[in-house]
């Protein structure tokens, strides 16, 4: 199996350049703390399609470089806005300021929704690294990301 192509979880996450820039920009603005936000998109038959209609930067209520909690009112506002557009919140992003763009044990333990996409942005190196994952029953599966 060493030659097998990597398999990715579905859906492929499709971000516009401006959405990508808003997510990564918000992560830099949040330094030295972790930053977080929510993404919205259509849900068809109980599953996200991977299309992202909107991104919603949120306050990290923890104001911490090690943990994040999406501010509840920011989530409420984002959820209402998404639903008014016929969409739903389909995932969350947060930054890792000094570590890999990979879910931490805390991220896995606290993963909210098996349908969601979990975006990690690492600011460890000079260039930001954005990756996306599904987390289901404690199992991490990477999703492909297209920025178009």
């Amino acid at each position, binding site marked *: 199996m060493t030659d097998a192509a990597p398999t990715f979880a579905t859906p492929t996450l499709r971000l516009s350049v401006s959405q990508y820039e808003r997510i990564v920009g918000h992560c830099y603005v949040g330094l030295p703390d972790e930053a977080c936000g929510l993404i919205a998109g259509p849900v068809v038959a*109980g599953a996200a399609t991977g299309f992202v209609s909107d991104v919603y930067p949120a306050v990290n209520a923890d104001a911490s470089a*090690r*943990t994040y*909690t999406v501010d509840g009112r920011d*989530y*409420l506002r984002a*959820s*209402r806005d998404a639903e008014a557009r016929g969409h*739903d919140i389909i995932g969350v992003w947060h930054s890792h300021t000094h570590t890999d763009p990979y879910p931490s044990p805390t991220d896995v333990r606290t993963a909210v*929704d098996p349908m969601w996409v979990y975006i990690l942005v690492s600011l460890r190196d000079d260039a930001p690294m954005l990756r996306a994952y599904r987390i289901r029953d404690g199992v991490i599966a990477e999703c492909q990301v297209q920025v178009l």
Partner: protein
Amino acid sequence: MMAVEVRLPTLLRVHADGAASVAADGATVGEVFSALTAVYPGLSEQLIDAEGALHKFVNVYVNDDDIRYLGQLATPVTERDVVSILPAVAGG
């Protein structure tokens, strides 16, 4: 009794026949939740902990206000209010 609209996040809709919004009778959030979980028993352990309090991983709003800063499950509601349930979103 007054029917109050309750908005459900995607996570909980599987327990409510896929509905994004349901209506339940009650004069307080707790009464509304009791009516709701009578119809959708799967929601019960998602909302209420073993001690009968609001589950710590769930945030509940009456309109714009978090019920933890109001009267918890005893927060009064009327048919003009919208109750929104959202999971706490956190990590490290």
